[in-house]
């Protein structure tokens, strides 16, 4: 299950969560204050696989960048995990960009993103119909103590993710290697002395993964921070979380939980081997504990050391939005891009089995009224699809042509055809002022269409547990999702595969269509990635014909950074990307 959904809720729950204004997004129309925005949106581009030449390193230089200096990162909370095996939420993943390297990684050059070999010389060689993947490691790749990163360490790093006590990380490789979602039963992890036969290490520079089913997008999966190398000799087990042994360009100098953390250069890291990390600053200082508004105000004031400060994921709050949007000097140092997170309203497909009724909900839903409460166009861009523009193969379509303000007349017609003109709908929402207001807007609009609306407040701490309950008594609730890599395999497969329905599973809409499940298997078995992308897009449309969700907005991220920094932009993880940042 993807922890990133939690982040997208968190940002939606944050007081006046705002994301950015992009001049490029025509769907929003002209936005006041947006004309000065220089930031490019995350391109609606495919993330292609780079060649071996792209993978050699060093990373092509950022124009005007220079080495040295200290960057301060202001974060609302400390990173909950740094142990790569437990890293899944986007702030944690962003921190681990600085502390770990993977077999493959995303390379950003002038707004284009490519997947290239990071520790490996390329993006892997498939054989046996994409069931076997072979990676060759580069030479000269070293840990913080100068020892060499070996293929055994890659294997050990993946094996650690099987340990039941190292919870919280993604489960893709574990499931693919063992063929079962209950992978810890198949292989308990390396601490008991057992080795995983599905990963073979013929020599210290070659690692071979044997999957139980074909996965053409395997190179993307190994780019996740969870599958970083860990040397068995330095595995401090659960203590690794506080002080991970660095394979990346920086290592931890000091870390006071919930207060501060300082990263300094790792002596073992060699820029010549690394095609994705620049590591321009000498030092990273993290400060934890500020409220979003405090962080915004410090970044606006940019006093002394704050002039080289940034934040990974704190959004510009509605309190200062007006000021930031109307001040060109502030707008010029704002990251302003659509993030990979899509948000939607789940229709409980187990309770509402009538297609016409689900379609009526979709037609009547006041998407604009609700978005206005969360900051309007700053919050995100309307979407009518399941996949977001950052996903490979994304196709924009609008199956229902539902107006964003809702169409009560059309909904009434659908309800009349459904046989029950006045069904009762339970709308569950997290107990914050904004969601309370949203509930008013939702019930007003649905009332007009003939629904009888019951609004049910859920304590915001328990929100995901309550809607994750497979026997929940709600009909309509907010949820969100961000892909783990730019393939629909990490969206449609986990969210809409009805066989995966379990407590807290991402299939919170409880959608289970055997035909769709079968199609997911069929697409996953395809070996051609571009064919997969096309088929995923077709499946997206097919699923929406059943109206299991009401697509709402693709979230945007607007974050400020200090005037003393350059090379700041959003990364695929959905946070401000630290690897191209330099001190001016």
């Amino acid at each position, binding site marked *: 299950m993807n922890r990133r959904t939690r982040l997208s809720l968190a940002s939606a729950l944050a*007081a*006046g969560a705002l994301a950015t204004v992009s001049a490029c997004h025509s769907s*929003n129309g002209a*936005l*006041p204050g947006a004309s000065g925005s220089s930031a490019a949106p995350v391109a609606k581009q495919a993330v292609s696989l780079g060649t071996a030449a792209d993978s050699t390193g060093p990373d092509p230089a950022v124009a005007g960048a220079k080495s040295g200096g200290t960057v301060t990162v202001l974060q609302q909370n400390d990173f909950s995990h740094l142990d790569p095996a437990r890293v899944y939420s986007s702030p944690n993943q962003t921190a681990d960009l600085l502390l770990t390297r993977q077999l493959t990684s995303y390379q950003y050059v002038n707004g284009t993103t490519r997947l290239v070999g990071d520790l490996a010389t390329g993006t892997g060689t498939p054989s046996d119909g994409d069931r076997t993947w072979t990676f060759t490691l580069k030479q000269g790749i070293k840990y913080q103590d100068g020892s060499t990163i070996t293929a055994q360490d890659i294997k050990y790093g993946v094996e650690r993710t099987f340990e039941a006590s190292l919870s919280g990380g993604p489960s893709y490789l574990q499931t693919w290697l063992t063929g079962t979602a209950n992978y810890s039963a198949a292989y308990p992890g390396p601490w008991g002395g057992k080795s995983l036969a599905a990963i073979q290490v013929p020599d210290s520079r070659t690692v071979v993964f044997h999957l139980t089913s074909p996965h053409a997008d395997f190179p993307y999966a190994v780019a996740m921070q969870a599958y970083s190398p860990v040397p068995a000799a330095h595995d401090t087990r659960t203590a690794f979380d506080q002080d991970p042994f660095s394979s990346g360009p920086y290592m931890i100098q000091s870390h006071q939980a919930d207060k501060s953390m300082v990263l300094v250069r790792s002596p073992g890291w060699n820029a010549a081997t690394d095609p994705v990390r620049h590591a321009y600053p000498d030092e990273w200082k993290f400060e934890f504990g500020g409220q979003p508004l405090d962080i915004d105000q410090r970044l606006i004031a940019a006093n002394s050391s704050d002039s080289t400060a940034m934040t990974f994921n704190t959004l510009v709050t*509605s*309190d*200062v*939005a*007006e*000021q930031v949007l109307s001040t060109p000097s502030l707008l010029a140092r704002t990251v302003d891009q659509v993030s990979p997170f899509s948000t939607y309203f789940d229709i409980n497909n187990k309770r509402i089995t009538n297609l016409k009724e689900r379609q009526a909900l979709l037609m009547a839903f*006041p998407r*604009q*009224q609700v978005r*206005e*409460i*969360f*900051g*309007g*166009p*700053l919050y995100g861009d309307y979407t009518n699809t399941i996949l977001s523009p950052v996903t490979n193969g994304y196709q924009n379509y609008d199956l229902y042509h539902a107006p964003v303000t809702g169409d009560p007349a059309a909904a009434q017609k659908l309800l009349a055809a459904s046989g029950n003109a006045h069904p*009762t709908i*339970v709308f*569950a929402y997290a*107990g*914050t*002022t*904004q969601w*309370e*207001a949203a*509930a*008013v*807007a939702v019930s*007003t609009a649905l009332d007009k269409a003939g629904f009888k609306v*019951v*609004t*049910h*407040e859920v*304590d915001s701490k328990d929100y995901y547990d309550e809607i994750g309950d497979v026997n*929940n*008594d*709600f009909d309509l609730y907010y949820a969100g999702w961000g892909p783990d890599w730019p393939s629909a395999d990490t969206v449609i497969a986990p969210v809409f595969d009805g066989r995966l329905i379990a407590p807290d599973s991402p299939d919170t809409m409880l959608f289970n269509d055997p035909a769709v499940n079968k199609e997911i298997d069929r697409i996953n078995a395809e070996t051609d990635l571009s064919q997969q992308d096309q088929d995923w897009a077709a499946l997206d449309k097919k699923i929406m014909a059943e109206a299991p969700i009401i697509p709402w907005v693709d979230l945007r991220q607007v974050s400020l950074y200090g005037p003393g920094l350059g090379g700041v932009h959003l990364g695929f993880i959905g946070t401000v990307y630290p690897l191209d940042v330099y001190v001016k």
Partner: protein
Amino acid sequence: MATLLTDAPLPEATTAAPPEGRSPGALAWRRFRRDRVGIASGIVVALFFVVGLGAPVISWLYGKNPYTTYGQNQPGLLNPYGYPLGSMGGMSSHFWLGVEPGLGRDVFTQLIYGIRTSLLISLTIVVIVTVLGTLVGLVAGYAGRWVDYSMSRVIDIVLCFPATLFFIAFIPVAQSVFVSPTQEVPTWMRAATVILVLSAFGWATTARLIRGQVLSLREREFIQSAQVIGVPARRIILRELLPNLWTPILISVSLAVPNYVTTEAALSFLGAGMVEPTPDWGRMIQRGAEVYSADFSYMLFPGLAMLVFVLAFNLLGDSVRDALDPKSTR
């Protein structure tokens, strides 16, 4: 004999009585009328009552209600970010105090309906708290010995209980016990929970005050003589003691009302009180605190209204005390 004693003027009143011989009530009214601050705050308080209880009438005359999302229904009231267009939160001849950011409801009607919510809830609490507290205080103070001891310990425990924390934790739990998730928590039930929980902790203050008064009164000659001639305890409590306690009761009532108005608002502010769509000051101020830098007036009007109300009620309470009990000093 007992009747004669009951009708005897209060010792305080006797000393203050001018020669022409007025009743204590008339004397208090005379003193109150001379207090200009008292009169002014009394008028303000009366105005709040009229506006609050007459909210539906005012809303009907004004042509708006607190529930319609005007800003979302008609263009030109809110900008694309959900904030009111125009100065001072969208103040205009149509929307006297502007519109709410986000939903675009009318601020003026929300405010006057908010008064009604606050007043109805806090007055109910005050009535319950006063009746219960007076009874407990009377019994404890008059009975003495183990009755007084045990009741006083209960009062101590209630008084030192971390009440605010309890409210926040208990109110949602209490509501979820009685209402299934598929049903809306009815507004009357939310109000009832707030009233119940606040009353459960509020009576102790009144009880302790009354007990103290009773302790000093019961040593007075008129009570002792009543006891000596065999007047039943119940009659002594109701006919001898209670009439002498009206002054502290009235004063505590007049100071408790603004106290409960702010407490109720604080609970709503913390998310444990009244919820949407019931108009409520606490929630308006909470929303105002979130949007204050972009739309200051949305915090200003409910904040000002509450300030004026609490100030006026407290001043009125002071004046009532001065009028009823001229010997006490501020």
